[in-house]
C-alpha cells in the first residue's frame, strides 16, 4: 500500500515486531510458568529446572477431573459441529436457492441475526428451567443442543454466502436433465461448497470448544467442559497457578493446530462472516 523507504521502513518493521511480541509474549510466558513448580512460580524465577509435574498432575492424576473434561469438550464440540453443519447448510440452501416468500425469509434471517447479538446469558435462565423439566439439565445432550443453537446463525449466514456464489445455471441444467431437487442439492451444489463447509465447521468447532457462559450453568461436575474446568482452577480457595497454566495451554491446542493447518479456512470464515 504505502511505499516505505529508509527510516520509515525500519520504523514500520519495529512497530510490527512490537505487535508480534505483544501477542506472542504473554502466551510464551504462561507456557513457561506451566513448566515450573508452584514455588518457582511464586518466586517469579527466570532460572529454574523445568518439570512436567503440572501437566502430569492435570492430565494423569487420580484426583484430576481434567481428562473427563477434555473428553466432554471433544464430544460436545464434534457432535454439535456436525449437527450445526447439517441444519445450517440445509437451511442456507433452502433460503438462498429455493423460492421463499420474501417476508418469511427476511423474518427468519433477521431473527438469526438478532439472536446472534443478544448475550447468551439472557437465554440461559429459561434454558435452565426447560432443561430441568425435560431431563436435559446437566447432560451433554443439553449442552450440545445449546451449542448448535448458538452456532446456527453463523453457519447459516456463511453457507448462504457460499451457495450464492454457485451459478444458478448449473442447477437449472441438472433439473432440465431430469435430476430431482434432492440430487441437485446432494450431487451438484453440496460438493461445490466444500470449502465453505470446512470453514464453517472449523469455526463452529472452535466456538463450541471455547464456549463458557452456557456450559458453566448447564453442566455438572461430571459433564463440565474444559473452559469450566479452567475457571474452577482459578476460582479455588487456593489457586493452583501451575495447574491453571498447564490446563490453559492444553485448552489452546485446537487453536494452535488450526492456526497451522486450517489458517486459510479460518481467515476466509472470519473475514467472510464479517464482510457479507
Amino acid at each position, binding site marked *: 500500500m504505502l511505499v516505505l523507504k529508509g527510516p520509515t521502513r525500519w520504523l514500520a518493521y519495529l512497530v510490527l515486531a512490537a505487535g508480534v511480541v505483544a501477542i506472542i509474549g504473554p502466551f510464551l510466558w504462561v507456557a513457561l510458568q506451566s513448566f515450573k513448580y508452584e514455588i518457582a512460580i511464586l518466586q517469579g524465577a527466570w532460572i529454574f529446572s523445568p518439570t512436567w509435574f503440572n501437566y502430569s498432575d492435570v492430565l494423569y492424576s487420580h484426583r484430576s477431573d481434567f481428562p473427563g473434561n477434555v473428553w466432554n469438550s471433544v464430544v460436545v464440540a464434534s457432535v454439535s459441529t456436525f449437527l450445526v453443519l447439517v441444519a445450517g447448510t440445509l437451511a442456507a440452501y433452502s433460503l438462498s436457492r429455493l423460492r421463499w416468500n420474501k417476508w418469511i425469509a427476511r423474518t427468519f434471517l433477521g431473527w438469526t441475526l438478532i439472536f446472534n447479538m443478544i448475550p447468551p446469558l439472557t437465554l440461559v435462565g429459561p434454558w435452565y428451567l426447560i432443561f430441568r423439566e425435560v431431563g436435559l439439565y446437566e447432560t451433554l445432550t443439553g449442552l450440545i443442543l445449546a451449542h448448535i443453537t448458538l452456532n446456527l446463525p453463523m453457519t447459516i449466514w456463511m453457507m448462504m454466502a457460499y451457495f450464492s456464489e454457485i451459478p444458478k445455471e448449473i442447477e437449472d441444467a441438472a433439473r432440465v436433465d431430469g435430476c430431482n431437487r434432492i440430487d441437485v442439492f446432494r450431487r451438484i451444489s453440496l460438493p461445490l461448497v466444500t470449502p465453505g463447509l470446512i470453514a464453517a465447521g472449523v469455526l463452529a468447532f472452535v466456538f463450541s470448544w471455547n464456549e*463458557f457462559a452456557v456450559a458453566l450453568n448447564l453442566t455438572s461436575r461430571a459433564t463440565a467442559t474444559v473452559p469450566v474446568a479452567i475457571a474452577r482452577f482459578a476460582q479455588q480457595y487456593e489457586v493452583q497457578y501451575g495447574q491453571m497454566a498447564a490446563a490453559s495451554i492444553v485448552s489452546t491446542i485446537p487453536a494452535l493446530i488450526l492456526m497451522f493447518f486450517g489458517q486459510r479456512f479460518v481467515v476466509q470464515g472470519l473475514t467472510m462472516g464479517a464482510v457479507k
Partner: protein
Amino acid sequence: MEEFLTIDAHHTPRYVGAIQFLDRHFKWVTIAPAAVLLILLTIYPIVNLVGMSLSTISFEAAKEIWTFTPAANFRDLRDDDIFRIALWNTFVFAVVAVAVEIVLGLTLAILVASVTRFKGTIRTILIVPILMPPVAIGSMWKLMYSMDFGVLNQIVTTFGLQPINWLGSVSLALFSIVIVDVWHWTPFVFLILFAAVEGLPKEVIEAARIDGARNRELVFKIIIPLLKPAIVVALLFRIILAFKVFDEVFLLTSGGPGTSTEVVSLHLYKVFFQQNQMGYGAMLSLVIIAATIAFLWVGQRAAAAVGAR
C-alpha cells in the same frame, strides 16, 4: 446426462414414494431442522422469559413454585443500582476497548499490507488470540497481572517503580480488563481491515502517488475514507461482542473490587444463578434483549447511511 438417469433408476420402488414426497416439499424439508431448533430453543424460551419476568420462582424439593408478582419485579428493576453501574461499566469498557482496537488494528493492517516481508508469518501469529478459549486468556492474564510474581510487575519493578495492583484497585481494574480485551480482539479487527486494505483498487493509490501524495495524505485522504465501510463493519461487530463480555471478567475480577468491573452479562449471571432470582433475571434479560434490538436497528441505519455515501 446418463449419470442422472441412473441415479433415479437405482432407487428401489419402495422408497420412491418417500423420495417424491421429500422432493416435492424440499423447501420445507431443508428449513425444518433449523426452524424447529430456533423455535424450541430461542422463541419458546423468550416466550418463557415473559412469563418468568412477571413471577417469583422458588424451588422446593426439586419442584418449581411460580408466584405472580409483577409489581415486585418492576420494583427490583427500578431499585437495581448495580444494573445501572454494570451498564455504565460495559459502556465505558466497550467504547474504550473498541476505539483502541480499531486504531491498532487499522495501523497493523496498513503496515502489514505495506511491508514486503513476513506478511504470512505476522498474520499467522495474530490469529492465535482469536481462536483461544477466552477463559484460557483470562487465566493467562490473571497470572501475568499477579501482584507478587506476575511478569508485568516484574517489568515495572525493574524500572524501580512500585508494583501495581492491576486487578485489585478500584480505579485500575476495568482498565486492566480493557487491556486483555485489546490483546484478544485487535487481531480480529486487523484481519477484517487487512482483507479490506488488500482489496482496495491499486490504481487509485497509484494515481494519488503519481499526483505527489505522501504517505500521510495517502492514509488519511485516500485509504481511510475508502475503508469506511469495512471500519463500520468491524466497529459494529466489536461493539456487539464487547457488550456480551463475560468470560474474562468472570475469571479476572468477578466484578470486583466492589462493583468497579461489574458488567451486564456478569450481573445477569449473578441474579440468575447466584441469587437464584429467576423471575427478576428474566425481566433483566428482556430489557437487555430489547436494548440489543434497538441498537441493531440504529446500527443498521447508521451503516446504511455510511454505505450510501
